[in-house]
């Protein structure tokens, strides 16, 4: 048993034992806002998603069947033969089964539905992407994470691994674990997706961001979820 544990620990990345959610680096007041569903504005999006789900989705899905789903995304999409993230899955589901125009990325209806579905997994651990067909995208995500980009010539690693926990202006640099998406960002004054956050990082280092829904983002999401595997989902998180 001890040996197995030691092996497991060896298998984890060096930082895995002190991984921390951005939640832990927030001010106590912002933490309290996230914890209290009546003060967490993200719950307004969850409530809207619940209404939409009950109206549009219950012919096929039950609320109970949504528990744990968000913890397993991005996943393999048989129809397109490519990885797909949760918002992409919901959007594709609307298009394929309801036969209506799919909601746009970052639109309120899609954010609301995604927040609602992800909220059903709040408190569950993020699972490690295990489908072997995801391996190439996972590796692409790892490469993107380590690649210097933009006019500032910075990679994700330089901030979120090498300097995580240190301060940049008034903020603590987080370890970049996507535990709470879609989340309510005080800066945005609204709910946004992980892809919006990734775009923010890319424009921050003065690089051309990918288009919403791009394979590169899904690959990055895959890698980040692999890196955060075992951490608990918080959706809807609140972040400064």
């Amino acid at each position, binding site marked *: 048993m001890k040996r197995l544990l030691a092996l497991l620990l060896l298998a984890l990345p060096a930082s895995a034992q002190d991984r921390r959610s951005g939640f832990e680096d927030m001010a106590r007041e912002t933490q309290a806002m996230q914890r209290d569903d009546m003060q967490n504005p993200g719950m*307004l999006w969850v409530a809207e998603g619940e209404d939409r789900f009950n109206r549009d989705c219950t012919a096929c899905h039950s609320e109970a069947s949504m528990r744990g789903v968000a913890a397993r995304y991005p996943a393999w999409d048989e129809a397109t033969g490519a990885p797909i993230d949760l918002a992409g899955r919901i959007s594709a589901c609307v298009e394929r089964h309801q036969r209506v125009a799919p909601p746009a990325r970052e639109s309120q209806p899609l954010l609301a539905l995604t927040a609602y579905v992800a909220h059903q997994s709040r408190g569950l651990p993020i699972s490690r992407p295990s489908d072997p067909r995801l391996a190439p995208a996972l590796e692409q995500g790892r490469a993107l994470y380590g690649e210097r980009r933009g006019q500032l010539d910075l990679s994700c690693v330089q901030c979120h691994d090498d300097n995580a926990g240190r301060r940049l202006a008034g903020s603590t640099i987080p370890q970049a674990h996507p535990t709470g998406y879609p989340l309510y960002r005080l800066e945005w004054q609204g709910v946004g997706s992980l892809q919006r956050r990734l775009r923010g990082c890319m424009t921050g280092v003065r690089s051309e961001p990918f288009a919403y829904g791009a394979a590169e983002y899904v690959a990055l999401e895959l890698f980040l979820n692999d890196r955060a595997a075992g951490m608990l989902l918080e959706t809807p998180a609140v972040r400064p």
Partner: protein
Amino acid sequence: MARVLINVPRSARRGDVITIRTLIQHTMETGYRPNAQGDVMPRDIIRRFTCTYDGAVVFSAELSPAIAANPFLSFTTVATSSGTVTMTWEGDNGFAQTETRAIEVT
């Protein structure tokens, strides 16, 4: 209709001080922010909140643009009799929304 979350206890004992908490989806556009084109976006806020219970206004508030997006309000009232708690939000561009919650007082 804006999405709202309201917390009013379903039941209370007469004389209890109960807490009412409300959260409503609204941008509370300040009237000071420029859009992507550099033009200042016109103000669009909730200006007034009113809570009536048992035939009387028990709490009301005038809001300025300094109230955060998706306004949160928490206040108290004394449970007097079984009935309806009515909450109304009014604001710019004809914004008006009313929500009710029943409370049983024993």
